[in-house]
């Protein structure tokens, strides 16, 4: 088996699959941190509408940087990102806010405001659509509050609305994170290791919610995961990163022993998470 590694003799260049009218197009994305670390080099791929794209790779392979470059939480050093045809990398501050509010994000550490209530945390998902001065009065319109309760209902914890976020278990906190992303009515959800801080049972529960959003609501998902078994179970397509470069882009079924070792190194053993 030959890997799609750039410069590898006989293989085509590591270009991701290009599709017509993608939700997200990443072109020659490069990120070099101020300390000289090259986190991403020349990464290009497309994400078609309705895909559940799983990004895998070792710690430090650039998964988190890639996720954060897409909505410019991290400024890319080079390349271009197009979200529904709009250039994210060239967007002004106001344009960027409009782009960001259509991209929901779910984090490994949940990133909830711990001292605030669950409801407030969910409502913050709507800030991109709310006039900024309303923040001074902590005011949200009644339909937005109704929607927040509906989304909490959807992730199964409506009774926790007035509980402080840090009083919840990890799995519940991540469900609040998903409800917050849902408030944005997103076209795309970026999930950065959403289950890495959870135990296996919780992992499936959280991933099933994301899968449901993908299948029922047609929200495109880009999700980074550690476990290949989870990637195979939930992904419709897998993108593997190694040292900031794409080393595999294809169907979950196509990852065999050789490819696995190429992604994770020769010493790696595949472990199942059930």
């Amino acid at each position, binding site marked *: 088996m030959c890997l799609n590694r750039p410069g590898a003799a006989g293989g085509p260049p590591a270009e991701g699959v290009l599709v017509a009218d993608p939700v997200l197009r990443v072109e020659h994305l490069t990120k070099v941190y101020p300390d000289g670390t090259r986190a991403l080099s020349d990464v290009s791929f497309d994400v078609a509408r309705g895909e559940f794209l799983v990004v895998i790779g070792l710690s430090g392979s650039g998964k988190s940087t890639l996720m954060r470059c897409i909505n410019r939480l991290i400024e890319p050093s080079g390349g271009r990102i197009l979200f529904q045809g709009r250039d994210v990398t060239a967007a002004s501050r106001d344009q960027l*806010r409009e782009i*960001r*509010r259509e991209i*929901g994000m779910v*984090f490994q550490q949940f*990133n909830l405001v711990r001292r*605030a209530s669950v409801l407030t945390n969910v409502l913050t998902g709507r800030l991109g659509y709310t006039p900024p001065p309303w*923040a001074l009065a902590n005011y949200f319109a009644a339909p937005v509050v109704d929607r927040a309760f509906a989304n909490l209902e959807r992730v199964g914890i409506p009774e926790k609305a007035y509980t402080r976020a840090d009083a919840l278990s990890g799995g519940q906190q991540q469900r609040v994170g998903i409800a917050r992303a849902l408030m*944005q009515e997103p076209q795309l959800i970026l999930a950065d290791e959403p289950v890495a801080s959870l135990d296996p049972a919780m992992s499936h529960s959280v991933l099933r919610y994301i899968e449901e959003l993908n299948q029922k609501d047609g929200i495109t998902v880009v999700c980074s995961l550690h476990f290949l078994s989870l990637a195979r179970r939930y992904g419709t397509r897998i993108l593997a990163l190694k040292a900031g470069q794409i080393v595999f882009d294809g169907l979950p079924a196509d990852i065999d022993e050789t490819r696995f070792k190429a992604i994770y190194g020769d010493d790696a053993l595949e472990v199942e998470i059930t």
Partner: protein
Amino acid sequence: MGPVGGAGASGGVSVSERIRAERRFRPWFRSWRFYIMAAVTLAVYVYGWQVTQIKLPELWRGAHLIAPLVTALGSPDVAVRDNPVQQAAAPFDYGGETPPPSAPASGPAVRLSQSTGHAGQRVTATGQGFAPNRRGMLEWENQIGSRQELVPVATDGQGRFAATFDTPDVMGTRNTVFADIVSGVGPLRLSATFFVVLDRMVETVFLALMGTTMGVVFAVPLSFLGAKNLTAHIPGGRVVYGLTRTFFNVSRSIEALVLAIIFTIWVGLGPFAGVLALGVHSIASLGKLYSEAIESIEGGPIEAISATGASTLQILRYGVVPQIVPQFLAFTIYRWDINVRFSTVIGFVGGGGIGFILLQYINLLQWRQAATALWMIAIVVAALDYASAVARERLV
């Protein structure tokens, strides 16, 4: 290299043997460093003892001077009784003229063995018609109404008493001898001293409140400029950060008491000078604590709220403020607590508050009044200390 820790695996010494050999263990009494350190320490304390003029015998020699204050602590001037008093009077003239005889036939009356004479004579006073078995006092009032105590008296079972006294050397000729017998037990009421002290304590607490408020009003905006994580992203942020932190450190190093002296020159004696002194000192201390609270906030929630498309104002409101408000409140309550304690002494330099009258009472040797002020300070400060501890525990 071979495997580590395999002692004797290849004839060499083990790692632990090598490390132990490198660091030689020597008992402390064999080390010359110990004797040098001991000599230096001894010299420092001998000099310190001399320079601070520590004279332990003074504690015994001066004990009688502090004793009145210590005993007064057991009987502070807090409550007094309005006891009913039976009074009778008899004239005594210096200079020979015979005064008109005293009239009352019934009720309490006092008679003197003589009603004219000169200073230094022994006179016997007899009383009758008073309440039986009570105590009282014979008093001498001179021509201009100034009174002095002569001797204590006590009535017998028939309400009579007899006492002798020496006529005092006073100005004027027409004098009156009064017999005041406390005839009953009146209701307790709070003393005038208590209300004076309470009034000043209220002033003290509000002095601290206003000073703390002044500190908060200026420290909150300044603390954002003194937080490294926030200033790092703005142009010239390093300079702003450096200037703010320098201001905090310099103004914190000036004691509030020194500031109070400076402000009494500026705005005159009184609580306003105290408010300014505590305020300026609080700006610096609170500013530093607030800045550190801001520096310790988590980046995660801010990242998450930025990702929803929130504006800077919204990020501050929902990402930053919830993380810092509880800590800010806790620090503010703590500062107010410190300021109440401090404002009790700020009166010593004329900055208003209870310290001002405490100093007065001590200078006038009014120990019971001073004791009232000391108790008031102790109780109010301890109560606020406790309340602030409870409040802070709930917040953080």
